């Protein structure tokens, strides 16, 4: 009996230790996690990092990495291998968790560490052919010795850092999610770039457009999707002459009608993805040299998607922002040139309805014969569960997805194959490799030939005085509107029949107007001989940029800095005066009149301290739903919604537009009715949501900017960042989307760069540096970027690497 008590006590002790060392669901192993020496407390930064020296067998020369007061690394190396090795090392040192998560996501491997909750995301990633595309890209990278060497060097650097870590040094997120970093490989870099393609070039509304044609007819398609708004202001201005031989392409006689209205997975790009860039010729600047500006709009997260870096080696000196996991600088400048980028909405993702011979799916009908499919086995490992195995069938179009939805119940299953640019062989990294070293405009023209996807509008400026914009990427040569609806998988005329030669892509150098710009709008005027897309961003931001630049002279960096923060709403200015005219004031009560007056006195700027921007936006959204949702709800399929700039034109031109009526009521509503009703609805909803009309209706609050942590860990982001902006403004901040990096570069004999991103170099939530630039970003401040020609004598601290 005397041993019973100690036995029980020990058993309880062991049970306690084991349970505190085990992860339960999303709860980290508590003992391990709270351990002040090796748990999360070890990640609390208690002093500045120290200078240090390291030696690695792989290195042949010496590398010095100087960190400036914002902790931006300036890497000085004797050769390229050592340079990219050091870039990999320091990037991993600041951003390891983010690097790994992004690539786990791109490879469809999140569930390995996160368990069942990410399984459907992973399955979707596999079905999209993301890993398949990454493997093909790597094969192509391997054929280019310089590029593959840079990938190898970068990987070696990342791995040198990872192998220096013991579990207590892991970033805090590993401790929360309870896993360990794994070896980095060049394939992961390829996956990282596929992730960018998924974010930026996976827009497709093929099924929705087909459905819309089926339910609302071709006239509706013509009115809203084929007709371009009169105010469109394309990236390449209409002055450009297309002096090349256009490669003809054969179109089918009649457009394919899909078997049934089906719902493919939604691949709509959220509005907010988009960007601005422009380059101004020396003829319009005070200095006489070009100025370049860029602010890519992406999901605003902590840590930031970008990592600032300077890379210096013999034959190379470049500064800018990089993507974690990718060697080189993505957006930036060097001693002679600068470049920036925005996204191109070209249609490079098409769905094909597939006819299989039988249920085995071993053969499919194409070009009047049965052709064999291939298969790819996708094994998704799931933490704490059995591995899920998925067999994906591939046609020559691409991977096949079975579409299951309520609409198809009781019908034959419908299969669709995906043709997507991300599945092409490509060596996109070569593009940035050459940008980093570009000396003249023609170097850029050569470099973009390597760019496949995601298609980008690159702007350039050189100290020789050249400026230009190049819509870059590999574009299928399509017949007009090819692929905006679901394609016939049996007919070769629906295949991507060839490619537009890069030199025939829309581009312009040194236009007469003295500037180039892009804001995701239409690439070229309608006289451009190729079809690219029918669904670009509304013209508002692009037109605003062009209006401002056309009116400016003797431009300075300060002017551009101010312009990046411009929050004028072209959208409001193009419709609000009419709404105020149409609204029936007699039916409004005193409160509603007060609010309407505030909107009436508004100057169309989306400023944080005004109440009108929120009221207008909410009203517009209710109005848009009021016009379309009743009709859209009456169909059983998911349909495509028209773009707001075109809707505004129709609203103004057609007072009797049938959709103004709410088909769910007896009464026939007019334009005035829907405008008035939705205004009242707006006031009611906003009062419920934000209380009585007052400062709590300020746009800075309603803008609803939360910066989520990249793995959505609560407390690791920044909530309710009070700010001006709007998705239709140049300062496209809104709802956790917006300018992820603002940069202004003055090229010339001495290049000068300025920039800011909302975050900090360090990815450690326990460091004051983690969100140190957020406030400067919010207020529109830019830091002067320390572009060094020589190793500096003053710095925050330094890391030195050398060979053994």
């Amino acid at each position, binding site marked *: 009996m005397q041993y019973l*008590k100690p036995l029980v006590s020990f058993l309880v002790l062991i049970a306690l230790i084991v349970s505190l060392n085990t992860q339960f669901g999303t709860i980290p192993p508590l003992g391990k996690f*709270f351990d002040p020496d090796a*748990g*999360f*407390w070890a990640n609390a930064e208690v*002093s500045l990092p120290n200078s240090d020296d390291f030696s690695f067998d792989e290195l042949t020369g010496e590398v010095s990495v100087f960190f400036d007061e914002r902790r931006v690394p300036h890497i000085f190396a004797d050769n390229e291998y050592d340079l990219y090795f050091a870039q990999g090392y320091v990037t991993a040192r600041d951003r390891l968790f983010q690097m790994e998560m992004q690539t786990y996501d791109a490879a469809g491997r999140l569930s390995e560490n996160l368990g069942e909750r990410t399984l459907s995301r992973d399955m979707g990633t596999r079905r999209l052919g993301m890993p398949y595309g990454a493997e093909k890209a790597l094969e192509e990278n391997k054929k280019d010795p310089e590029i593959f060497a840079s990938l190898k060097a970068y990987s070696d650097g990342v791995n040198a850092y990872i192998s220096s870590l013991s579990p207590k040094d892991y970033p805090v997120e590993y401790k929360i999610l309870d896993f360990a970093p794994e070896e980095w490989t060049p394939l992961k870099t390829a996956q990282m770039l596929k992730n960018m393609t998924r974010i930026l070039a996976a827009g497709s509304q093929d099924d929705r457009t087909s459905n819309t044609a089926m339910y609302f007819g071709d006239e509706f398609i013509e009115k809203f999707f084929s007709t371009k708004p009169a105010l469109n202001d394309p990236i390449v201005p209409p002055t450009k002459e297309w002096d090349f031989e256009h490669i003809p392409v054969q179109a089918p006689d009649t457009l394919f009608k899909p078997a049934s209205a089906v719902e493919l997975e939604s691949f709509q790009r959220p509005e907010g993805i988009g960007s601005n860039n422009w380059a101004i010729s020396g003829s319009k600047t005070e200095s006489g040299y070009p100025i370049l500006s860029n602010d890519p709009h992406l999901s605003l997260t902590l840590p930031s998607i970008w990592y600032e870096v300077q890379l210096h080696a013999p034959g190379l000196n470049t500064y800018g922002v990089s993507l974690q996991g990718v060697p080189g600088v993505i957006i930036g400048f060097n001693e002679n040139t600068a470049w920036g980028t925005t996204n191109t909405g070209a249609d490079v993702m098409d769905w094909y309805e597939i006819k299989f011979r039988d249920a085995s799916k071993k053969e499919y009908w194409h070009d009047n014969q049965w052709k064999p499919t291939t298969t790819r086995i996708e094994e998704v490992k799931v933490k704490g569960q059995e591995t899920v195995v998925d067999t994906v069938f591939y046609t020559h179009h691409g991977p096949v997805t079975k579409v299951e939805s309520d609409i198809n119940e009781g019908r034959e299953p419908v299969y669709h194959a995906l043709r997507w640019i991300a599945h092409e062989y490509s060596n996109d990294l070569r593009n940035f490799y050459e940008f980093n070293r570009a000396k003249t405009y023609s170097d850029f023209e050569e470099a973009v030939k390597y760019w496949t996807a995601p298609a980008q509008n690159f702007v350039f400026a050189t100290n020789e005085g050249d400026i230009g914009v190049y819509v870059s990427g590999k574009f299928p040569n399509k017949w007009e509107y090819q692929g905006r609806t679901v394609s016939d998988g049996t007919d070769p005329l629906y295949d991507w029949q060839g490619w537009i030669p890069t030199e025939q892509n829309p581009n312009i150098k040194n236009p007469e107007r003295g500037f180039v710009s892009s804001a995701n709008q239409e690439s070229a005027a309608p006289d451009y001989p190729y079809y690219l897309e029918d669904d670009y961003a509304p013209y508002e931001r692009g037109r605003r940029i062009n209006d401002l630049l056309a009116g400016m002279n003797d431009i300075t960096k300060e002017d551009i800095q101010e312009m990046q923060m411009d929050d004028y709403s072209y959208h409001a200015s193009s419709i609000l005066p009419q709404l105020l005219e149409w609204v029936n004031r007699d039916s409004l009560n005193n409160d509603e009149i007060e609010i309407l007056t505030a909107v009436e006195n508004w100057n169309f700027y989306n400023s944080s301290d005004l109440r009108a921007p929120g009221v207008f936006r909410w009203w517009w959204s209710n109005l848009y739903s009021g016009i379309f949702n009743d009709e859209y709800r009456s169909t059983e399929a998911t349909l495509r919604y028209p773009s707001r700039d075109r809707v505004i034109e129709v609203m103004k031109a057609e007072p009797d537009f049938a959709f103004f009526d709410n088909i769910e009521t007896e009464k026939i509503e007019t334009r005035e009715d829907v405008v008035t009703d939705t205004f009242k609805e707006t006031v009611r909803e906003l009062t419920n949501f934000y209380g009585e009309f007052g400062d709590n209706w300020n746009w800075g609050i309603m803008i609803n900017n939360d910066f989520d942590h990249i793995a959505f860990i*609560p*407390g690791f982001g920044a909530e309710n960042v009070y700010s001006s902006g709007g998705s239709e403004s140049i300062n496209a901040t809104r709802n956790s989307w917006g300018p992820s990096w603002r940069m202004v570069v003055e090229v010339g004999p001495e290049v000068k760069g300025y920039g800011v991103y909302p975050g900090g170099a360090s990815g450690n939530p*326990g460091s004051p540096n983690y969100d140190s630039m957020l406030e400067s970003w919010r207020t529109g401040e830019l830091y002067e970027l320390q572009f060094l020609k020589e190793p500096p004598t003053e710095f925050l601290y330094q890391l030195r690497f050398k060979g053994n």
Partner: protein
Amino acid sequence: MILVLLIAITAFLLNLFLPWWSIALPGVLFGYLFKQRGWPSFGWGFLALFVVWGGQALYTHFVNDGILSSRIADMLGVGSPFIVILVTGVLGGLVSGLATLSGSLLNVKGKE
């Protein structure tokens, strides 16, 4: 009090090099050697690691300006970083207290 100090110092040192559960070892050893009764043993063991873990957490909290502890408090939904510090102390204390209790119970013969 000597028991507390011995456990605290030994556990602190072991914890620097060994996994976190090594903090249980001093409790078992000194609990056995000090032959105290059950509940006092638990109390002294608890106090030792409550001070060691809680104290280190508190120190880190202040030197770090509460940046990380506040974020962790948000993540756990507990409102205040001081609760995070308290939990740290209590977790260490529980393990050590139970270990010291177990050690003392083993030496039940010595007491008789």
